[in-house]
């Protein structure tokens, strides 16, 4: 297990380094630099030169990259070119805001998806299943911004006036203390991921429900509830874990669009703006963060899959020397 984790982590770090290099090259390929982006057409050669000197944009590209990279290794994300403050300073609250949004969406969305998927599988080809199928397929076909705009029209501006159309967060106040601003963006994210996870769960549940041991359990006279929750679900959970992890990772990226639609002040909105301003250190930091979340979630999902799949567990165990055995027992709760 430890070896699996270590190798996964090593690959993860390697992936992130690659991401850093590619993003740096991509930002260099964009036309214009931060100074011309910030000054826009009000730029004069004198003002551009002064700003470039202030932002150290006149240094060679390789030097800039090395300066940034060596800082990163020591835990510094550099200084934002647009805000002229440390990147960690600029992104601190915004990261918390995004995290709040993703966690709230996950806490609401994933159990909902699980429930919908399991129930659809159990009620296969009945009305509930058909309704959920049509609903999830429709939602899955719609991009988030369409869902977001529809929610705004429905709940904020045209039909009902229940919720704020734009998520204006009070600066300096944590997002979770401003729940009204969270509802619509979180609902949009929930509607974006629920269909995907629900359909995966339904599919894998249907496979499992057709297995012989489920038939056996039913023949033994166990209640349907016990059959579904104790016999079928644990065996159907592995694909669901993968789907949940992918969804969470997707949310972290998809949050860019949702935050833009609602002007929710998180890292997604910050990314759009940083690209506009050619604020390379901020772009780098955000892309690396999103990349790190992807990598971590994938590792966690792999580990969790191993944990809930006895076959994979024993394979790992067999590959190990007996001396490691005791510690493994403590690693694996059951």
């Amino acid at each position, binding site marked *: 297990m430890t070896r699996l984790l270590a190798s996964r982590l090593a690959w993860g770090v390697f992936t992130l380094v690659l991401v850093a290099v590619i993003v740096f090259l991509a930002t260099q390929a*964009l*036309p*214009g630099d931060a100074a*011309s*982006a*910030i*000054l*826009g*057409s*009000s*730029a*004069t*050669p*004198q*003002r551009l030169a*002064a700003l470039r000197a*202030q932002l150290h944009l006149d240094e060679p590209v390789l030097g800039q990259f090395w300066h940034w990279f060596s800082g990163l290794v020591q835990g510094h994300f550099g200084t*934002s070119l*647009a*805000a002229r403050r440390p990147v960690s300073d*600029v992104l601190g609250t915004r990261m918390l805001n995004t995290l709040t949004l993703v966690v709230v969406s996950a806490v609401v969305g994933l159990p909902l998806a699980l429930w919908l998927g399991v129930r659809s599988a159990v009620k296969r080809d009945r009305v509930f299943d058909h309704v959920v199928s049509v609903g999830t397929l429709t939602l899955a076909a719609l991009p988030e911004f369409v869902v977001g*705009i529809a929610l*705004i029209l429905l709940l*904020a*501006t045209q039909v009902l*006036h229940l919720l*704020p*159309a*734009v998520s*204006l*967060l009070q*600066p*300096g106040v944590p997002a979770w203390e401003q729940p009204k601003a969270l509802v619509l963006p979180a609902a949009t994210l929930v509607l974006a991921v629920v269909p995907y996870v629900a359909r995966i769960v339904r599919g894998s549940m249907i496979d499992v429900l057709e297995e012989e041991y489920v038939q056996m359990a039913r023949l033994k006279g166990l209640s349907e509830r016990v059959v579904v929750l104790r016999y079928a679900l644990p065996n159907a959970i592995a694909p669901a874990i993968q789907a949940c992890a992918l969804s969470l990772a997707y949310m972290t990226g998809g949050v860019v669009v949702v935050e*833009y*639609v*609602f*002007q929710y*002040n998180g890292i997604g*909105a*910050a990314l759009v*703006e*940083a690209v*506009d*301003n*050619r*604020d390379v250190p*901020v772009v780098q930091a955000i892309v690396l963060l999103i990349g790190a979340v992807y990598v971590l979630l994938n590792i966690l999902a792999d580990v969790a899959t191993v944990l809930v799949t006895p076959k994979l567990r024993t394979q790992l165990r067999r590959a190990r020397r007996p001396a490691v055995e005791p510690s493994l027992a403590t690693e694996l709760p059951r």
Partner: protein
Amino acid sequence: MDSRKAGTDDRGLTRRDMLQRAIAGGVALSGAGGLIAACGGSGSGTSPNPGGSAATIKRGGTLRVGLGGGSTADTLDPHNPLTDPDISRTFQLYDTLAINNTNDQLEMGLAQSIEPAGSAKEWVVKLRSGLTFHNGAPVNADAVIASVRRILNPKSPGRGSAALASVGSNGMKKVDDLTVRFSLSEANSEFPRVLAEYYNGIVPPDFDLAHPIGSGPFKFKNFTAGEQSEFVAFSDYYRGAPKLDAVVIIDLTEDSARVNALQGGQVDAINDLPFSQIPAVKSSGTGAVLQADTGNWVPFTMRCDVPPFNDPDVRMAMRLIVDRPQVVGQAFGGQAQVANDLFGRYDPGYNSELPQRTQDIDQAKSLLAKAGKSDLTVQLTTSNATIGMVEEAQVLAQQAKAAGVTINLRQVTSNVLYGSGYLKWPFAQNYWYTRYYLGQVVESTLPTSGNNEAHFDDKRYVSLYQQALAELDEGRRNDLIHEMQKIEWNTGGYIIASFNNQVDAYSTKVAGFVPAKTGVPLGNYGFHLVGFTA
């Protein structure tokens, strides 16, 4: 250059927006007259304390304003405003010696008078007496000198540094506590106009950006770049205490988010209402549209120094190809007025005697034949840098076919348009805000101008310009400007098809917004005149 920032503000339109706008155009135009009449009662802005509808305004309340164009680059620097919200903040916090009022006419500000002393090289600025900054410190000659020095600081030159360069650090002398004498290295008969730019505000000598002090209608309370800023009323404001208690300026970059926030009651006013949303706001019953005729222009720029446009006949043919009313209707949704290939519409020297140029395909064809360019093919570089820019290019390309001219559109992002290719495109577009004539000339039509996209270089024009700058008599100066405009009208490198409206919106719960011809949104951001009616 322009009175606001360009380049990073991508306000692109989709084809659907275009269609909606074309439909909305007629409706919007027919409603415009009534609307302007309805909100025109609150004064023209020429007197320091306009009355009018102010009677119905109650005291107190906090105005929440949603503005596009902001980012984490936002700053409170009085002399380096970068984004639209920054510009709106300079109007709240700081004051200038003179003012471009909502009619785009010059008016005295902190200065009681700005008078030439003998020639256009010597200027005496007399301050109004008894003025104070937010912290109680006096607005005096020392503050004026310190502010101009701050703008000219070579390490961080302000927006106004180029126009004030002729002052130099030794060009100012304190005559008495309220009087400063400026000695310019070059004549400038429009020096008061330079001092009236909103980015040349007067701040105390010990100005500290962390605790910004000015003499404007609102005092600083807090500021988070890219998010929002708050200001509270300055009761000693010399043009009359604001009716509001406070103003909150909120960054709302996305167009539809701004409209949604207004319709959902989260903000009381927004800038840059998309044309397609005008009917929706008007019919909502909770919102009003602030439509202002301005001198803003979106020119086509033809390089006069390279083929095919180095031939004046070809340039004239291109200008004759344009069906201007069609540009107004299709590219700008009716939110514009026909222009005559000239800028500086509200300048007292604007030459309105020149006949309005209209489409003349036959004449265009014969000019092209004379130039040997009957089957002319050109590439036009366009961008969605401002509303209607790409659409204007598409309309022109369509119209040019009638004269046998093929215009191939090359659409780029605004970063490319203003990137390393800027000033090199043979045929492109740009956008400019409202300015007085000579101030625009120095920016864009002299061989020495930093933004001479058309590479226009006419010796007589330059000599007329220098005479005008030295001419203190307004009548004679206007005659010189007339001559300059005649040259531009005949051989210039710009096609200026229209002057475009500034369209903003506000909640019906507030009143006091005045349309501003300057093109600065929300009536020169004149929030001190605004208040709640209910």
